[in-house]
């Protein structure tokens, strides 16, 4: 069985038309035509007549949850989500950035998505590796079953096995490449702070120039800010023009959080984000 992208696109269009015509939502966040087939754009349909421009194919990797916070509170939004994107939506609901009742979630079960820049398949190596959306109102297509499930943390084994000197050398090399275009934080559905800590001038956490120490400060703090919140969609790494494997660090922190706090990000709207929560019985072992 493979994913029938054309069918999903048709369903997406008909759902979007219905929702817009009935006035149930003000905007539909989906994907639209880009400058060629392999480069679809995030697209916002506001009227039923916009719907014809919606597309869905294997290159529609963008996480549309990024755009939710852009609309004023109370806007009725329909959003097309894949597995990781749905977790981002849940996380945003947990953080009270959007209300569940303001959202119509159109779930898309999918695998075999491709990175538009490199053409590589996007799988559990760079993302959470799930196939089915965790939350949805309407499922566009059939749930995927029978695909082999690979732990998203398998890819970490190689790096965890490195000794700390090698790991530092690896991260130093990778983070030194950073040109501070901030595509990672802008592509991230969880990075909605304005201003971002790195843009503050008092206290000034990092310099604006792309030097090692500023880059380190920016990225480490960003990893920390996303601890227990990162839903492993891999957008940051795909957005990066200089190909820094940011997903590795995010995965590592997500894995640790899951182990320590017994909770993965964006799996249930009942949860609270791990770091703004505690249990009295949390063990001091986590500090050792």
């Amino acid at each position, binding site marked *: 069985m493979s994913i029938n992208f054309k069918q999903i696109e048709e369903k997406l269009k008909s759902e979007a038309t219905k929702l817009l015509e009935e006035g149930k939502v003000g905007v539909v966040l989906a994907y639209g035509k880009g400058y060629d087939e392999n480069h679809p754009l995030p697209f916002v349909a506001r009227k039923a007549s916009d719907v014809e421009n919606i597309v869905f194919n294997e290159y529609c990797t963008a996480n549309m949850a990024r755009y939710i916070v852009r609309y004023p509170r109370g806007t009725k939004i329909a959003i097309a989500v894949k597995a990781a994107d749905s977790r981002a939506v849940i996380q945003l609901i947990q953080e009270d950035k959007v209300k569940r009742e303001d959202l119509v979630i159109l779930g898309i079960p999918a695998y075999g998505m491709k990175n538009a820049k490199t053409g590589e398949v996007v799988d559990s190596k760079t993302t959470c590796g799930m196939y089915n959306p965790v939350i949805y109102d309407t499922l566009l297509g059939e749930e995927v079953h029978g695909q082999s499930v690979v732990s998203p943390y398998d890819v970490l084994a190689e*790096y965890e096995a490195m000794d*700390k*000197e090698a*790991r*530092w*050398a690896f*991260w*130093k090399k990778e983070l030194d490449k950073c040109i501070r275009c901030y595509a990672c934080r802008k592509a991230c559905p969880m990075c909605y702070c304005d201003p971002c*800590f790195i843009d503050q001038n008092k206290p000034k*956490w990092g310099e604006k*120039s*792309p*030097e*090692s*120490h500023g880059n*380190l*400060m920016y990225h*480490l*703090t960003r*990893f*920390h800010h996303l*601890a*227990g919140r990162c839903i492993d969609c891999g957008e940051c790494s795909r957005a990066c023009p200089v190909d820094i494997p940011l997903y590795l*660090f995010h995965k*590592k*922190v997500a894995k*640790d*959080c899951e182990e*320590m*706090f017994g909770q993965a990000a964006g799996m249930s709207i009942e949860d609270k984000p*791990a*770091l*703004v*929560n*505690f*249990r*009295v019985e*949390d063990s*001091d072992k*986590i*500090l050792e």
Partner: protein
Amino acid sequence: MDFEPKILGIACNWCTYTGADLAGTTRLQYPQNLRVVRVMCSSRINPSFIFRAFQLGADGVLVGGCHPGDCHYNTGNLYARRRLAVTRKILEFAGIEPGRFRVEWISASEGNKFAEVVTEFTEQVRNLGPQTKFKIEQLPTPEKI
């Protein structure tokens, strides 16, 4: 040459800082490598403080707070515990020796524990040697073309 580590201590106002005072008034000896910054609660500690301390040349960072359950603000240190646990993991994955960062719960009456922890931690950091990974040696002039 003997290496004298520079250690940043971040202590909560209500317990650890008072504990440090007690250690002082009871004339307990502990190494002078610790520079203490007082914060109102261990949950006030922004993880960036710790990253920044390492960047500015700290060889180790010691965080002190009230015992879980004894927080002056009821729950502050319970949040801090989770947060600092993550900080620790991040430092470790980036390649900083975990022994350079320590969180201890020290109450206002535990002057001797404060002295013990500082002594022990200083020795530990001394054995790890200077921290060079994060430290900014000077403002570099990158010839990035």
